[in-house]
């Protein structure tokens, strides 16, 4: 996804890739996510949620 193609619905400004912290089960990870430079809202798209985020959750959870 190009960061210029999506705008914040609240602020109307284009999202920019921003290093964002994810926390799960006591661990923290960073990842670049399209984020509104004005209000800070981050867009987690389906690909990230069902891809890397889900995979990290699976790895962290006890078997």
């Amino acid at each position, binding site marked *: 996804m190009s960061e210029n193609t999506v705008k914040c619905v609240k602020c109307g400004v284009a999202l920019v890739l921003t290093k964002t912290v*994810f926390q799960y*089960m*006591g*661990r*923290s*990870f*960073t*990842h670049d996510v399209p984020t509104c430079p004005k209000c800070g809202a981050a867009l987690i798209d389906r690909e990230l949620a069902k891809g*890397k*985020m889900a*995979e*990290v959750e699976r*790895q*962290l*959870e*006890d*078997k």
Partner: protein
Amino acid sequence: MKRLALKIKEPQSADFGTTNSVCPVCRELLEAKRVLRGDDLYLVKTCLEHGTFDTVIWRGVSDFPDWFAPTEPAYCPADNNGSPACFSGGLCENHATGTCCVLTEVTSRCNLHCPVCFADAGNAGEDVPLDELTRRFSDMAARGNTFVQLSGGEPTVRGDLPEVIRAAVRCGIKTVQLNTNGVLLGQSAGYAQELAEAGLSFVFLQFDGVTDGVYEQLRGQKLLETKLAAIDSCGRAGLGVTLVPTVVPGVNDGETGAIIKFAVSKSPTVRGVHFQPVSYFGRTAKTPENADRITLPEVMRAAAEQSGGLVRLSDFRPSTCDHPRCGFHADFAVLPGGSLMRIAGKKAQDCCGSSTAHLQNREFVARRWTRSREDEKKSDCCDTGTLDGFLTRVKSHGFTLTGMAFQDAYTLETERLSRCSLHVQDSGAIRPFCANYI
């Protein structure tokens, strides 16, 4: 049952409940009582014909409360001989856990003659015909059992082992594990590559210690160089190796930490260590005393105390797909420099007892014990504080410490047997592992 068990009275002991077990001599079902003495747990049972048997099953109860969490009752009925039904007929309708892995013996021949061998294998014996193995693989796959352990005897003595592996893959088996002493892998250049090309997923390597004295005592000869060569061969072939020590008190329980450190140094080829406290079935030298036994908590403690801070006691979790007291696991990734990054945490609700626990475990061990060459190529440049870096490193350098306490006729608790997810398939029934070898 033809005989009635005596009621056992232990007035000085705390009561940890009763279970069923068997007489080690006649194999008939008996009532057995778990008795706490000090901080250690014993299994006490009496056969009217063969006497009382009093066997340590857990040394150090208070440090391991999670291994004593309540489990759903599980009951194994008697067969016509008065033994547990799964001894003869296989998994019964009461069996509480699905199949995680299926072990099948491809031969009864072996190229070692170890003083201790649960399969009682030797130089004589027979190979299971390839068409019979193919039938078993098809049957497993049809039941959804797609993780097979090729065992024996020593599977590599079969000249057609690559063809056996190809047959398993053709039948729909997704994960093929080889249980081996590593002698041929270490001696024969190119053999590991041949097995890998046939479709082998990873190797479970008998690896009892890091000194030759251990092998001389347990296997009757010096084998360390052979083991190291086997690991190197697998490394070149892209095969993951999990080291499998049989832990015997006074022989190699002092090498627990050294084995872990060695395993870490061989990451990513070596994917972990799977400890098996010695059990007394198959070929053993004598009737075991309690001093001849080492229990799971002692192995965990030894790992924590001897590993120089690499491993902590709190890293270990109970088995979630078998009975809790059948096993432990700890989950890491090896970082550049050789330290361990802890991965798995404690879920709010364990999967123990759920209908999919065996499937979760199957997926977990296959994921951890299989190498990912693609991730290995890029793993050293990655920051594990990022999503991408973490995933890459876990897949390239995943490392597990696991343990499984096999039950013999002295330590058997049928409620543990009823929760077994490691099953053995021969030409007939599918049995819980311990029921097959007792």
